[in-house]
């Protein structure tokens, strides 16, 4: 079976991540963000995306990676899962590729510090690139965050 999957590729640090293209609504440049008090630390606030108010989260913060300054390359990837719209702040996003479904392996036990449950798998591309496929439902799962926060806090 040579089923192909279109994937948006974005970077966090040196790692490359992928989200299926049908989950991604648009990719935006950085824009003014209104801080929302009393919420998770990785929630940077809300933006006005063409008249719709959408929360944005820093994906580095979400994965407990060190947060960095935003640059010209920083992008907000707007994803939609079910009827939930969320923007991900990522270091850069500039590629759309086709990968074969059978090129995705199930996630290894430990991958670069990111908790394995956020991963749907790892895709091996040509020239030995590795693409980490995100499990959006887990990334957007709030109940787990609440637990995490209460343990850490």
């Amino acid at each position, binding site marked *: 079976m040579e089923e192909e999957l279109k994937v948006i590729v974005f970077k966090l640090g040196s790692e490359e991540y992928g989200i299926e293209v049908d989950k991604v609504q648009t990719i935006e440049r950085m824009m*003014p963000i*209104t*801080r*929302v*008090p*009393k*919420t998770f630390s990785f*929630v940077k*606030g*809300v*933006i*006005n995306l*063409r*008249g*719709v*108010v*959408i*929360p944005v989260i820093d994906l580095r913060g979400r994965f407990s990676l060190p947060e960095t300054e935003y640059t010209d390359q920083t992008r907000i990837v707007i994803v939609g899962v079910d*009827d*939930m*719209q*969320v923007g991900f702040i990522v270091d850069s996003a500039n590629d759309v590729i086709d990968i074969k479904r059978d090129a995705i392996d199930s996630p290894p036990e430990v991958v670069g510090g990111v908790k394995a449950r956020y991963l749907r798998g790892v895709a091996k591309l040509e020239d030995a690139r590795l693409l980490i496929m995100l499990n959006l439902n887990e990334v*957007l799962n*709030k109940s787990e965050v*609440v637990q995490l926060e209460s343990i850490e806090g």
Partner: protein
Amino acid sequence: MDMNQYLSMFIDESNDHLQSLNENMLQLEGSPEDLGIVQVIFRSAHTLKGMAATMGFEDLASLTHKMENVLDLVRNEKLKMQDFIFDTLFKSLDALETMVQDITEGGEGKADVSSIVASLQAIESGEWTGGTAPVAAVNQSPSTATPSAVELDEFQYSVLDQSIAEGHRVLYVEVLVSEQSQLKGVRAYMVFDLLERSGEVVKSFPTVQDIEQEKFERSFSLYYITTKEAQELEKGIMSISEIESAKVIQLDQETLQQMTNQAAATAEVEAAPVPAPVEASSEPSSSSKEEPKKPVATKTAAPKQAATPSRTIRVDIERLDVLMNLFSELLIDRSRLEQLASETGNNDLSDTVAHLSRVSTDLQNIVLKLRMVPVDTVFNRFPRMIRDLAKTLDKKIDLVITGAETELDRTVIDEIGDPLVHLLRNAVDHGVESIAERVAAGKPELGTVNLRAFHSGNHVFIEIEDDGKGIYRDNLLRTAVKRGVVTEEQGAKMSDDEVNQLLFAPGFSTADKISDISGRGVGLDVVKSKITSLGGNVTIHSTPGKGTNFSVQLPLTLSIIAAMLVRLGSEKYAVPLSSIVETAIVQREQVRNIHGNKMITFRESLIPYLSLSEVFGVPDFNDANEQETEIVVIRKGERLAAVAVEEFIGQSEIVLKSMGTYLPSIEGISGATILGDGQVALILDPNAFIK
């Protein structure tokens, strides 16, 4: 065939039909002899049945079919409407409503209606004993006379004539319904239905109304413009059961003229003894002794006919939301353009932008109006509710609705139903006295409950007024003191209206214990809090012995509110104007520490002082460093609090936006809005600041 795409249409239309059935049934209950209403009910039920069957909802179709059978007996004067029949039919409507509700929620519209069906069948077969014997069937001797050509008026003739000239197919159709047919009207209806799918009936004999009411013998004829072949059509009509014969003749200009001439000639002769009505419905060949029936038919059918074609379309509310969003973007661009134009000082540009502003302001009004819905959509379920309630309580109640056309934003309409139900129930249950009490008090047996809606300024008022016993101050106060809502001293000082407001106090919501005295108090605190959460208000006025008036004040819309914009450092927040008492400036030394809480004196009372920058952790402002601080005094019910901010920006109309489902609900924030510069500002929820 995939029916899913029709499902929402089916649900909408079913609800419409159910509503009209309910309304007409109520009307019929008022004048049970009016067969015109029965006709309307029958037609609605019939359409509903057809739709349900097409969509494959068998239970729905079969129940409507049973109702139809009963209604058919009634309209043919073989059965008289009576209480039992009304009750059964109302029960059937309830069952239908439940089924449609089930379908709406993704079910299959199945329900156990066996007892209702049994009752309907008992009525239909006459086994039901409570009733009088069926009225003797009025059977006209069947005539086999086939009417020949139909007379046309000048206009109809020229329509047909021109259609032929333009190459359309004009047909003359004659249909004979089988002698055994039980439901001639339905068969005829099916023929018309078939014909209207692929063309237009220009003229029929007898008139459509008469045919629908079965005021014809076995045959009817009509002129018809279509694209279909005569033969094909004939086959189509014959495929309807209980049609004995169908004659379809294609006409050219010559035959058309011949036919009409001939018809006119016969009509003149036939119509001579009786002055023929202008409507050209005179009968060319069969006897004209049925003329007296005409007025009955037109009287009832005509007004309904005029009311049906409403020039509206259904629009998904989400599309309107998208339109609103796009529109608010346009407004943001507009303000940018205005700014740019004033900076560049180019006259042509300024003129164009000024025009753009005017157009977009008009557009904004229209967009907002699109979301306005008449309160009728909520009110229309009340007559039925009051009827049932009055029946259960054994009271006589007349519900008078006025101002049902008053419009409110969709967002408010969706929320207002439940509180109104509460208030109406209250009026019927506790306000209006029992029949015996009314008679004893010298009032008419029939109690009146007025339900009024009207606009006033930026608000809509909905009033519920009964002519019942009213509220007795002393009784009410005694209970309030007993329940610990107020002390005796406090109560003595209160004005009558203030005492009445006690009904909305939370401690009053335990119904049964207090219903023996003044009566009211069934969850009225819930009503009050719901209405307050909508930005509205509710007041009571009552005259003991004369009745009580509940007046609900509501904002026109929830999606746009007036707000005060405030700034704290680089952040802007919107405070709903409805909860602001006033704004002021306080000096640092006016803020006192009382038992660890900051308080200030405001108008001779001590109110809590809240630092918004602390509550929200604003990074670049803290009022603790200020010598003078701006405060917004907010209100929740009777209680006040002062919220410290850095600066007031000004008052503005803001469009409420949801923050989506991802963020958890945040205490103190009720939503977001987009400001003129495109920035998002959060809206404070003042209720959260006063505990």
